[in-house]
């Protein structure tokens, strides 16, 4: 078990966005979180990645308590994330975006750069070499020198995933990785997600498109109003009555 969330609660004033939620993500799987709008999916990601502090509950990663750590610390522990509104550094080129993802592994700091130490050169070389590999992996090699303003939505989606991969994560949290792309591009990104899992990185994703979720997930968690309504394999969750109710509405008794 890679990630374990116990009895997690996150409330904003009187609004309980996540309500006593338990979940676990196993090593090497694609784990999907589904639920209607406002179910608390993105909030859950924000709590796991440290953007929000949980109101109560415990988050364990690789057996260590990471509850309430700052986002940069969580990233250093090996959890990377993407954002729902595709976030990349808009004033960098594609290549520069990936390079900066290596920063957390750099052993030299500012003084190393100023005095041009061997370690600083080594860090710079490593970040470039790794970036080239990631560009290759995410299929962005051809546009590596493009400024972000000249890229398509799909390229930015891939880049945001590449940026997360550049931190060498053990677990990657993808928030709606295929929103806003067309059908063909969607297949490409789904392939990329599978490739990430096959490379040994555990994937946890939020997605609305059922075709995507049912197609690639090893396990699924369905939540509504911040509570778990089902957890299990694709088959188990898709036949769960509560899930069907949450998505299609409850049939009128009259």
């Amino acid at each position: 078990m890679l990630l374990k969330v116990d009895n997690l609660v996150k409330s904003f004033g009187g609004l309980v966005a996540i309500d006593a939620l338990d979940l676990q993500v196993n090593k090497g799987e694609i784990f999907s979180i589904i639920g209607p709008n406002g179910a608390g999916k993105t909030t859950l990601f924000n709590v796991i990645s440290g953007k929000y502090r949980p109101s109560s509950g415990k988050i364990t990663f690789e057996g260590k308590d990471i509850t309430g750590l700052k986002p940069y610390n969580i990233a250093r522990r090996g959890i990377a994330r993407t954002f729902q509104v595709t976030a990349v550094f808009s004033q960098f080129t594609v290549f520069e975006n990936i390079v900066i993802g290596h920063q957390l592994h750099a052993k030299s700091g500012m003084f190393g750069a100023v005095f041009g130490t061997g370690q600083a050169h080594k860090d710079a070389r490593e970040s470039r070499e790794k970036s080239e590999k990631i560009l290759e992996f995410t299929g962005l090699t051809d546009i590596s020198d493009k400024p972000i303003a000249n890229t398509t939505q799909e390229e930015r989606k891939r880049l945001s995933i590449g940026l997360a991969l550049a931190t060498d994560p053990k677990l990657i949290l993808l928030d709606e990785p295929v929103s806003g792309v067309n059908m063909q591009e969607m297949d490409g990104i789904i392939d990329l997600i599978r490739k990430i899992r096959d490379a040994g990185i555990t994937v946890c994703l939020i997605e609305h498109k059922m075709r995507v979720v049912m197609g690639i997930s090893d396990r699924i968690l369905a939540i509504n109003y911040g509570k778990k309504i089902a957890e299990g394999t694709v088959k188990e969750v898709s036949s769960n009555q509560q899930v069907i109710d949450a998505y299609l509405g409850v049939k009128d008794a009259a």
Partner: protein
Amino acid sequence: MENLLKLYTTKHLLFALLIVAALVFPLVASTYTLRIITMCCIWSMLAIALNLIVGYTGQGNLGLGAFFGMGAYTTGLLMVKLGLNFWLALIIALALTVILAVLIGLPTLRTKGAYFAIATLCFNIIFTTVVIQWDALTKGQTGLMNIPNVPAIPLPFGGQIDFHESLAANYYLVLIFLILTIVVIYRIVNSLTGKSFLAVRQDEDLAEAIGINTFRAKLLSFTVSAFIAGLAGGLYAVYLGFIAPAITSYGITFTAILYVVVGGAATVAGPIVGSFLLTVIGEQLTAFGTLHLIIYGVLVVLSIIYLPMGLVGAYQMFWPQIWQKMKRGKVHAA
């Protein structure tokens, strides 16, 4: 690849040429010109300092004048009151400036955007008020006078570099520190640390998510920026031999902002180009008497409207396109 190599070498060649020009400059320049250019070098350092925290890191620090003043006053006071020589005074002054920067950065950098700008502006106003009111130490509004020169540096083969008589010696002193500053800044902004400053400016949430400690990055940038401003202040004090509270004020910060904006924010050359251009233009305009500040103001506003990324920013943006067109033209001609 060949083009890249060409670009790389022309850039370095240009830098080397500029240094040579700067070195022989005192031989041909009049005393008046040399004075102005020495001031340009000092303002360039201040503008470079401002550019690091505001241009590269995106934090609207309006308190830089206080750090310039801290460097100037501490250097000056240590020399006048304790009779320390310039080098020792400068080192102590820079150490104190860095400590002050950390103490101010720790609380103010927890705020963002306009709040940070207001917090640092308030700090600067308090600092200037203290300098004015602490009459016993700083001589208040009268200003601190008779700051000694840099001690003469003996040369190995006899003779010495005398800073008392020679304007050129002072010019070279400031120039060497300016070149050092440029080299240091160039290395910082091209390193992963520099890229992390740029990342913080663009998207703090994303920067945190990829493992950058954004608070630490901001504090580092803020402190280095204050250090360079303090260095410029120390040089200012010893060069002019006289300092008044006005040089600690936020007005100094705004002047530096103008230099950075006109020259080009978040570029290495921008603040230097801006400082030299505006200082020289400002001097030329004094011929217009009282009108000169109005003309100066109009020029600055026009440049902000038509060159929002500054001169160097515009150059970087348009030069590759012009270059491409020129190359294509050549091909057609052939």
